[in-house]
């Protein structure tokens, strides 16, 4: 077999199985199906070209490429959103753990809305952790920050999410106000 078909086989065995994870991340970062498709297509072709540089596990390696493709895409198409990836996001208002009543009552739609509204750095950390079940080490590698930053982003992200669910459920049921 020639080098080309070997590359294709390696790609199909190592990279393509993670296509869903790639799409899920791109979809949560671009928040749009159509844009996610463009980004993933571009990222997968990049992955194919750089396949020779793959050492270790393919999934975090691929997701790092997908994330970079998302950033480049946002830079061109929605530059304002790049700020969400920086460490300048709002501190949680409530330092005590917020009530989880809102969490118990929230439905799928509310949770998805709240998650989509989170600042990108928290959104990506939570998606990689909870939906892709990746380790702190892998998340640190993909998002290009130290493990300590992953820990604090997950902690703050969860707290912000709880707050925002609380706000959504208060807005949905104004009579709850005391």
């Amino acid at each position: 077999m020639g080098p080309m078909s070997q590359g294709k086989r390696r790609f199909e065995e190592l990279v393509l199985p993670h296509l869903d994870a790639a799409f899920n991340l791109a979809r949560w970062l671009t928040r749009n199906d159509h844009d996610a498709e463009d980004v993933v297509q571009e990222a997968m072709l990049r992955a194919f070209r750089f396949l020779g540089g793959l050492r270790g596990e393919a999934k975090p390696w691929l997701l790092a490429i997908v994330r970079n493709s998302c950033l480049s895409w946002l830079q061109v198409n929605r530059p304002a959103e790049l700020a969400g990836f920086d460490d300048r996001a709002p501190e949680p208002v409530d330092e005590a753990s917020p009530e989880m009543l809102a969490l118990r009552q929230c439905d799928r739609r509310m949770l998805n809305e709240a998650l989509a509204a989170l600042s990108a750095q928290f959104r990506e950390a939570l998606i990689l952790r909870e939906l892709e079940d990746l380790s702190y080490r892998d998340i640190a590698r993909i998002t290009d920050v130290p493990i300590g930053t992953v820990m604090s982003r997950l902690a703050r992200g969860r707290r912000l999410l709880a707050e925002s669910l609380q706000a959504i459920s208060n807005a949905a049921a104004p009579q709850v106000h005391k």
Partner: protein
Amino acid sequence: MTREEADKLLHVYVDGELDAAKSLELEAHLAGNPAARAACERLREMSAAIRDRADYHAAPPALAARLRASVPAAPERAPRLAWRLWLKPAAAFAAVALLTWIVAVQTLRPGEDESIAREVLASHVRATLANRLFDVASSDQHTVKPWLSARLAFSPPVADLSSHGFELRGGRLDYVGGRAVAALVYQRRQHVIDVFVWPIETQKSEQVSTHDGFNIERFAKNGMGFWLVSDLNRNELGDFARLVAAAP
């Protein structure tokens, strides 16, 4: 442990990433602190809510098809023309080669599996004879998993099956088939069950066998190969295998 420290470590603990020593420390703190326990429970709920209710956006099927079609054309095209001439005979040759390969693999694989079965059995017997069952002793999956993950190139799935009568006792590192693997140690009555786990490339079929009075069960799930070894009877080991396979 101070409250601030406990608060900080709680997320790490719930994520199963806290090392064994710190986990024990935190668990001691939780045991004497109902408020911290409640906070831990809330965090678990939050994590579960995202896992259960957030949308997982799988790639549209058309995208996969498009990628398969567009990928080979991407880099170095040079060999393509020469290829075309050879395509038909090459395809025929490839088909024959593939067939030969499949037959060879089917006949050869038992030999390879046989040697792995011997290795996991030897490891199980050594560990039970020498009473060196685990490197990390804990009934908490959130202690065992991070301990193993920190020392291996992969993160083995560790399930809590105590409600089904299979107690997690701990885990150890071992060396099977030329690689470092995780060995999870469970107990059913007086029987010790070793679960060897490591990442595999090709999914193998399930298989049950008996060696020297020990039952060995093998299956694969999510890219991980599992080998179960125990002197437990075959039926119960089979039940256990199904529970492990079904665990999230």
